[in-house]
């Protein structure tokens, strides 16, 4: 994708994304009814779930691009992987910070070792390791390969972590009656959630395109200047 095309793609998705965000805010604060059992704090759900959605897309992209990078050796795939990893970290952080804000009011605790929260926390650290490995290896090319290895192992560990933690948690019933997922959604809540998912996805695509272009430009200009 050349620079002009990338600029247009980023702008297109960015404008769409921001418009959808504005729609989301309207729906969350003026349209969707307040959930009866959790009250106003349940509205965090409409950004909490989309942030996880985007984080998992991002980490899936990291694993895919890393795997193909190791296979083909194409530097653009590594650029895509590191871009996706950055985005994944941002949206995982959003999920990790908004979850406790919701949980404190809804469940009475800032943190529970609920499978998804635990998985999210571990994913954050796996991808922290991804960045540390890239930066700290003396040979940059080797750093890219090691990061790709960490990215692949990290994503393949997701089902293991989720299955194991879910199994462990099933032995210990939740202290509160409320389902952490929230109640079964009615139409308007589902619609708001879908808009949230769309908004976050569009914003991610826009920023991903810009960041990827920046990364490719950075590598190209660095090669030219050396």
């Amino acid at each position, binding site marked *: 994708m050349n620079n002009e095309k990338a600029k247009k793609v980023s702008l297109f998705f960015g404008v769409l994304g921001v418009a959808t965000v504005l729609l989301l805010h309207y729906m969350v604060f003026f349209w969707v009814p307040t959930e009866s059992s959790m009250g106003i704090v349940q509205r965090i759900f409409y950004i909490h779930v989309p942030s996880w959605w985007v984080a998992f897309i991002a980490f899936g992209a990291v694993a895919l691009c890393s795997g193909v990078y190791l296979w083909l050796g194409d530097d653009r795939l590594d650029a895509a992987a590191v871009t996706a990893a950055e985005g994944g970290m941002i949206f995982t952080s*959003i999920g990790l910070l908004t979850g406790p804000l919701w949980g404190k009011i809804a469940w009475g605790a800032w943190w529970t070792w609920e499978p998804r929260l635990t998985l999210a926390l571990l994913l954050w650290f796996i991808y922290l390791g991804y960045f540390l490995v890239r930066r700290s290896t003396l040979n940059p090319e080797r750093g890219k390969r090691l990061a790709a290895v960490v990215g692949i192992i990290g994503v393949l560990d997701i089902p293991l972590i989720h299955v194991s933690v879910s199994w462990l948690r099933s032995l210990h019933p939740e202290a509160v009656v409320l389902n952490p997922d929230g109640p079964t959604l009615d139409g308007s809540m589902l619609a708001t959630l879908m808009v949230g998912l769309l908004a976050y996805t569009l914003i991610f695509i826009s920023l991903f395109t810009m960041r990827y272009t920046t990364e490719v430009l950075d590598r190209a200009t660095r090669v030219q200047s050396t």
Partner: protein
Amino acid sequence: MISLKGVNEFKNNAMAILFLALCFPGMAQAQATASSLGSQSLGRPYWHVFTAYAIAWLLVLLWMVAISRRLGRIEDRVGSAVRD
């Protein structure tokens, strides 16, 4: 020579719109407190909602700023290479 003017324009426009979007929770909270919503008592839950939305957009904004700064560094590098 790589032209980055359009990207910078987008960057500035998007930052402005994002800033407005960030203000929405505050505006909405002011609106919401005027009418009663369920039996939930006002105060702390609203602050949690506002903080959550603010954190979300702040982090997205931070990523955008980081990308912009990186782009700026590349511009400088390209500019100095052309001058040399």
